[in-house]
């Protein structure tokens, strides 16, 4: 069957490329176009349902406090009152600040220490190098929750409970960051390092002005993910920040949710917590997509 089909097809294409091709391709093209239209419609509906809960957050956050909890239509008037009020309620600004410090400081230190270690692990020979790399990668198999209790006791012995540095310290050991950057540094061409040495660049200089600029894509990707992980984290901040002052935004949100707060205020708080993540995504989405897709293929 298939042999006949292919041979007749090749016969007609040799007969006359102009006429034959257009008559054969005319129908498939329009059929394909129709398929594409259906596909677009289906995906549009799916995308709408996916984004709908977040749109609801925005609408509820901007609705007057006495609006019905299920908006049957767009509210008559939108207001920024909820957003400004949330910032005046209790320790909300403090929570926001704690989250910001937790996320940003962690990103900076993780990227700094991990890229230094990655440079050494990929490019320098020293005793114990492979054992160290192996040990770091092996920690990826241990779920963080499995070491929650000993980590908490350690931090509490150091006096880090209810402090932001106590929150940050344990998260600086990020095996994914070390591993990912190392793969990247390993694949840089040897000539670059030879050239740097011939130019008389010292080790620190080579790291700062040769390695760091070249690994910018992987650093950008990791910056997004480390930021998101910390900004959205709940369990660790929940056990370390036990006082109102020491809470992060996620812990604060979870607390607000159990108190009797109006739907519009809780949604306003939720919206505020989401904005930094969204901004980050809009700015750097190309890197996010690339990094996830490449990790998938490698995995």
């Amino acid at each position, binding site marked *: *069957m*298939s042999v006949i*089909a292919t041979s007749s097809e090749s016969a007609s294409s040799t007969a006359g490329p102009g006429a034959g091709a257009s008559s054969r391709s005319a129908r498939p093209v329009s059929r394909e176009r129709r398929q*594409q239209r259906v*596909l677009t419609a289906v*995906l549009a509906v*799916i*995308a709408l349902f*996916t*984004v709908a*809960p*977040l749109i*609801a*957050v925005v609408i*509820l956050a901007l609705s007057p406090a006495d609006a019905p*909890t*299920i908006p049957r239509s767009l509210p008559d008037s939108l207001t920024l009152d909820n957003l400004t009020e949330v910032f005046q309620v209790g320790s909300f600004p403090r929570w926001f600040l704690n989250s910001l410090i937790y996320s940003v400081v962690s990103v900076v230190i993780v990227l700094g*220490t991990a890229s*230094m*270690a990655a440079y*050494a*692990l990929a490019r*320098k*020979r*020293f005793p114990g190098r492979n054992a160290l790399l192996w040990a*770091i990668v092996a*920690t990826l198999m*241990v*779920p963080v929750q*499995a070491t*929650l*209790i*000993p980590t*908490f006791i*350690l931090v509490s012995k150091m006096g880090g409970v209810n402090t932001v540095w106590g929150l940050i*310290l344990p998260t*600086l*050991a990020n095996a994914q960051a*070390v591993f990912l950057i190392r793969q990247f540094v390993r694949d840089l061409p040897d000539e670059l390092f030879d050239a740097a040495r011939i130019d008389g660049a010292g080790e620190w200089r080579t790291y700062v002005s040769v390695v760091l600029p070249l690994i910018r894509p992987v650093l950008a990707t990791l910056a997004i993910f480390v930021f*998101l992980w910390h*900004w*959205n984290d*709940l369990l660790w901040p929940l*056990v370390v920040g036990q006082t109102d002052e020491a809470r992060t935004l*996620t812990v604060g*949100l*979870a607390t607000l949710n159990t108190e009797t707060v109006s*739907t519009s205020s809780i949604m306003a708080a*939720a919206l505020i*917590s*989401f904005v930094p*993540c*969204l901004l980050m995504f809009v700015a750097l*989405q190309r890197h996010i*997509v690339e990094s*996830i*897709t490449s990790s*998938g*293929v490698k*995995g």
Partner: protein
Amino acid sequence: MTAQTLLGRAARSTERRREAITGILFVLPTVVIFGIFKFLPILGAGAMSLTDYQLNGDYTFVGADNYSRILQDDAFWQSLKVTGLYVVIFVPLIVVVSLAGAVLLHQMQRYTGLFRSLLFVPYLCSFVLAGIVWTWIFATDGPLNAALGGLGFGSVPFISGSQLLVLGSLAMVSVWKGFGYSMLIFLAGLKALPAEVHEAARIDGAGAWRTFWHITLPLLRPITLFVLIIETIVGFQVFDTIYVMTGGGPNRASHSLIYFLYDEGFKFFDFGYAAAAGVVLFVIVLLLSLVQQRTVEGRSQS
């Protein structure tokens, strides 16, 4: 042996020593951080699980007592059952949804970037935010029940009804929040497939469904395994949405393993016992990913 080669050898060995010193200096911060905050707690978890460590720091060695106690603890078995049920609902659901999303996106010739971004957006929000929105959606007087009421159905107690309903609703939230990530991994897998195989199938007269079932899916097996493993691990760690939406209820129907660990540690301050729960969690997650890897590899070889 000439003086020159001797000199060369000396220079090489100094250089090698310098290289080793730089290497060690550059990994030093990481070694210190990992030593204190990763390796020490991992060892600590094992050690603490053999003691009755208390809030004030007092402890005595109790051997395997915590482990024999955990095996006789109804609350532990309940949490294991909850987590198992949750994983059984959550994992197939998220794999199917993310694969379907990837296949649809892969067929698209235009607006791919836009749709990809829209489907990915929920991944950016926290489980806490997801929990808050879906608590509102699932509420007795919420929009979902209003819609169901409009269709003539009675009110559904999504997060306060039967265990299956509650766990299904919680899984729904996690699928919504997380499928974008796995979808992108599947999408990359689809893009990496050789185009010739699909062309050959089409020429042989295989329909879209047959092609997908007999060609695309088997070729995607390694990627599916990867997604299965990461999502199973995610499923076993479910906590945030439960904390926000049900508090482990109703009547412990959603009291998962991590919730058990959290309660034992930070509600009852039974740290040694909670550490043992952590070790059990580690062993379960490790075994499951090994079993999964074996099963899928075995099937792909046959």
